[in-house]
Structures are given as structure tokens and as C-alpha cells.
């Protein structure tokens, strides 16, 4: 096993991608993810890969489209406003089933907003900012080590399902330092891509990659193909973590950074003899609705904690399905909620002063 090293989130994402055999990276700088393109610009060529600084995020996502169509292992990254600019590309990548890994190191919005962390891109990530019926597979790590693991998984899922996979982290995880163990070089599992545009060499009919269908019946049939794939992903790729659901009076729901803050809030509550639990979705699409079936009858309330005005709460309500009251607490616009704020809101809801 490799030695533990201290790494910043962004540089660990880039190094992990290289070790999982990412060969193409296209990007345009935006804070708080600049260490990713910076690292790739220096290191990717050493691993026989190609780095291109695009003239915009729109160019970057379309370069990724091309490299992916040609069978390459591709990653792109950006932060909220830049990822917003890539939304057309998300729809196109899904439409033609082009594998690609995308990292959104999200920040406070809307608009240019702030360079500080935010989780307000949840709707965009899980509902889609592009046109048409499509889904990104969305994974939300809560630590740098987990990010490394999920980047490896993202490349695999992306190839397996021929679908873009989004790693959604906020700026806090991109900027924080943590000791991590990196995977070995060439840890990426590869599968054949017989569909890729690699040249016929005169021995097979040409492959075609296109997102236009002139006949409605053909487009509907293609949509059925995509829908069946999405249903399979929903059946097979849900992932989440739970803590202390057995006897929790209040259950927190949070992903990424806020789930870490909640762990300290849970300690504060425990000191006051209040039992609390946590549901932490790791896959945001497909969403772990079934995790809410694990809650016990001792639970009195569900509290969703987000660095947004409350977006994931919609999915929590679908999962809870009216069994428990669901409320929200959060900070937004770049402010990070404190463990104390979370704990005191939990006490207020439970009627404990």
C-alpha cells in the first residue's frame, strides 16, 4: 500500500484521475478548482496524457465530447458558473452516450456569486441544466480519500453505462487538506469500446455518433433505450451511508461537507443526551430513497442540512414519504454552517432547550 501523504482536495482529484488512467483533460480556470487544471497542465503529459487549456468551459466540454467519442478516457472540471456553461454539453454527452468524468467544485451562487463553498448546484446536478430527458450519475464524496475512490468508480461507471458521471464536491473539499493514500498507477479498469470512432481501417462499417434524429419514432426509440439504462442505474448504483438510525430521535440528512459538520453536531447533542442519526447520500442520482426505510419508530423528526436554500429537501420528502416531519436548516452564499448552529436547530425542533 502507498504511504500516506498530505494533499489538497483539488490536487488529489487530479492525481487520482491520472492514476485511474485519465488521458485527456480539457479545462478553463475558475476558483476554487484551479489547482486541478494547474496540476493537470504540469503532470498529465508525464503520464502520456494530453492537457488542453480551452478558451471557455463550452469549448472544454465539447473537446471532451470529441475525445470521448474517439474512445479516450476523459475528465473535465469546473466550478458552479463554469459548470453552468457546460450544461448544453451534458445533454449532448448523455444523448450520444459518451463516457466522461466531470468534477464540479461548487461555490456560492447564483450568478458569479462567490468563490467560497456552496451546495446550491444540487438541482442542476440531479435534475439537469441541459435540455431533454437525461441523467448524469452524480456522486458526492465527503472526504478527499472518498473523492479519490469515487473518481476511480466514476471512470468505471462512465464506461460501463456509457454515461457522463459528475463528482459534486463543494469548494471546502476542493481546498481542504487531508492525509490520503493514493491508488497505484494504472489502477483504472478498462473495457473495450467497439462503438468508438477509431477509424474503420477498412475492416468494419463506420461507427456513427450523433444526437439528431429526424424521425420522431426513432428518437422515441432512442429515448426508450436511454430510459432502460437509467432504470438499470437506479436499480444498481444507489449508494449511501447511515449512522445511528436505530434509536435516533432526530435524523440528519446531508451530503459532502455538511455531513462532516453534522458529525460534530451529533457529538454536541450526544453530550446533552439527545440521540441523533445521519443519512448521507453518496449517489445523489440515483438518489437513495430506500435509505429512509431504515429509520426507526424512535425518530421524531428529519432535518436536512444544506449549503443552499434547501434543494435536496425535495428528494428527502420523496424518500420520507410523509412518515416524519421534514425540515431544513442551512447557510448559503459562501457561508458554512457551524456544528453549533446545526445542534441548536435540532434541539429547537425537538423542543429541547
Amino acid at each position: 500500500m502507498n504511504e500516506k501523504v498530505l494533499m489538497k482536495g483539488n490536487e488529489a482529484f487530479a492525481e487520482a484521475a491520472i492514476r485511474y488512467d485519465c488521458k485527456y483533460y480539457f479545462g478553463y480556470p475558475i476558483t476554487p478548482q484551479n489547482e486541478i487544471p494547474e496540476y493537470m497542465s504540469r503532470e498529465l503529459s508525464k503520464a502520456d496524457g494530453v492537457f488542453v487549456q480551452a478558451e471557455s468551459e463550452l469549448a472544454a466540454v465539447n473537446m471532451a465530447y470529441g475525445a470521448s467519442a474517439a474512445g479516450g478516457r476523459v475528465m473535465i472540471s469546473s466550478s458552479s458558473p463554469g459548470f453552468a456553461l457546460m450544461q448544453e454539453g451534458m445533454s449532448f454527452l448523455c444523448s450520444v452516450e459518451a463516457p466522461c468524468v466531470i468534477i464540479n467544485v461548487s461555490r456560492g451562487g447564483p450568478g458569479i456569486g462567490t468563490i467560497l463553498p456552496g451546495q446550491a448546484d444540487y438541482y442542476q446536478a440531479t435534475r439537469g441544466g441541459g435540455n431533454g430527458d437525461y441523467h448524469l450519475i452524480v456522486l458526492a464524496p465527503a472526504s478527499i480519500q472518498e473523492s479519490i475512490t469515487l473518481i476511480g468508480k466514476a471512470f468505471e461507471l462512465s464506461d460501463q453505462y456509457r454515461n457522463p458521471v459528475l463528482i459534486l464536491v463543494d469548494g471546502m473539499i476542493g481546498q481542504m487538506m487531508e492525509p490520503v493514500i493514493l491508488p497505484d498507477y494504472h489502477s483504472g479498469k478498462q473495457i473495450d469500446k467497439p462503438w468508438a470512432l477509431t477509424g474503420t481501417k477498412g475492416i468494419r462499417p463506420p461507427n456513427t455518433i450523433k444526437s439528431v434524429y429526424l424521425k420522431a419514432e426513432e428518437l422515441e426509440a432512442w429515448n426508450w433505450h436511454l430510459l432502460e439504462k437509467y432504470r438499470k442505474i437506479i436499480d444498481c448504483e444507489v449508494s449511501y451511508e447511515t449512522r445511528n438510525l436505530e434509536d435516533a430521535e432526530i435524523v440528519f440528512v446531508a451530503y459532502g461537507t455538511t455531513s462532516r459538520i453534522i458529525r460534530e453536531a451529533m457529538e454536541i447533542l450526544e453530550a446533552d443526551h439527545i440521540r441523533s442519526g445521519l443519512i448521507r447520500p453518496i449517489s445523489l442520482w440515483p438518489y437513495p430513497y430506500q435509505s429512509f426505510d431504515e429509520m426507526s419508530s424512535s425518530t421524531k423528526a428529519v432535518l436536512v442540512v444544506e449549503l443552499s436554500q434547501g434543494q435536496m429537501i425535495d428528494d428527502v420528502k420523496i424518500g420520507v414519504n410523509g412518515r416524519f416531519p421534514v425540515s431544513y436548516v442551512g447557510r448559503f452564499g459562501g457561508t458554512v454552517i457551524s456544528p453549533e448552529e446545526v445542534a441548536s436547530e435540532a434541539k429547537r425542533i425537538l423542543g429541547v432547550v
Partner: protein
Amino acid sequence: MINEPIELEVIEKRISIVTGHFGSGKTEFAVNYALDLTKHMNKEIENSRYKKVALVDLDIANPYFRSREKQALLESKGIAVLSNTFGYDINLDLPAISARINGPLQDQSCRVIMDVGGDQSGARVLTQFKNQFINEEYDLFCLINANRNETASIEGATYHISAIENEVGLKITGLINNAHLLKETKIEDIIKGVKLCHELSLKFSIPVKYHCCIEKFEIPLKRYLSQNKNVNFLEKVFVMDIIMRSSWLDK
């Protein structure tokens, strides 16, 4: 706290500039260093050459975890914090540095710590103050964490030292060993940094000024250093509190 505060007055330069690879702990060191200097100053204010301490936050490379975030704490201890034109609570990665920074740099009664952004790109901002340094006594520290992947080897650390020197056009005058792995730090991780910094010290002919650690490693680290013949008598153990890192990050 520093072992022998009396000696400090003799060997410390008025301006201490803290550079290094990003994520090595420069800001944590700079904040602790400023707080420590204030403690000594308060005790010896009558005889001291310095009447105040200023922490200059020159980190315009990284938008997160900057020393200005602890401005209230630092100011409550009598430390002046200077950063961008807009005040500490603006979080934009704007290359806007306050002209007020020239004040402490020129004020001979002010002890100055400059917390510089990471890598050579973060250090570039120093060049505009270079003329000021040349006529002054200053220390240009390079802080090294031997557990950072890019500065774990002699080659990697050499790259960063040289890149910073070339960018700024000044020589590093002292190395600071800040080897750690956050909450997972073991004494061996710190000793790895001691060895690395000693090798670098020989290679570049730069003294190692401090070996940093948190309180629980103070005694074992001092024991190791006292048993190690390569240690220069001026090398000190600098005990730090973890001020910059939120506790929930380690849950």
C-alpha cells in the same frame, strides 16, 4: 512558545517572510508565530526594540484558509492585520494589496510577519516589496512539510525552494520544518521532516530555523534533536496550536 526567548531578540530579523509550497501550513505557522512574538513582547516591552507586531497577509493565490480569517483573534492580542484594500471579510481572489502594508514595512519599531501565498506564483507578489527588503534586515523562510507529496523528497523540495527564489529574486535564509499529517501525525512523521530539512540545509547552505510541532510532540522531538549530532544549536522547536483548522474537519 519558543525555547529561549532572550536569544530570539538577537537572532531574529525584523521582517519574517513565510513562503513555501501551498498546503504546507504557512498560515498556521504565521498566525502562531505572530501570537508568540506578542507574548514575548508584552513581557519585555520596556527593553524591546519592537513596540508592535503586524501580520501582513499577502496570500492572493488561495481564496480559502487565509490568516485574515483570524483577524479578530489576532487583533484582540494587539496584532495589526493587513491584507487587501477591502478589509479582511472580502473573499475574492483579487490581486489587490493595500498600500497600508508599506507602513509596518517602514516602521522600525514594528516586528513584521508576512504570510505569503503558496508556491512561486503566490510568492510573486513579494517582488514589489523587494527594494524595501534589500535595505532592511529580513528573513525569507521556506516552510516545508515532508509529508506533502510534492515536498516529500529532496528533489521535490529543491524544486519548490529554487522556484520561489527564482520568482522573488531573493535567497531563502531559513528553512522551517513543518512536517505533519494533521490529526494522524506521529513523531516519525516529524522526524522525517527533520532529516529532510537537514539534507536541504546542507545542500543549500541554509540554516533550519524551527522544527514545528503541536504540544504533545514537544518532549519527544526535543529528545530526538538533543540526541542528534547533526542538529545546529540554533535550531529550535516551535510549539504551535491548531488555530486555522475547524474542528469538524477532523470528525
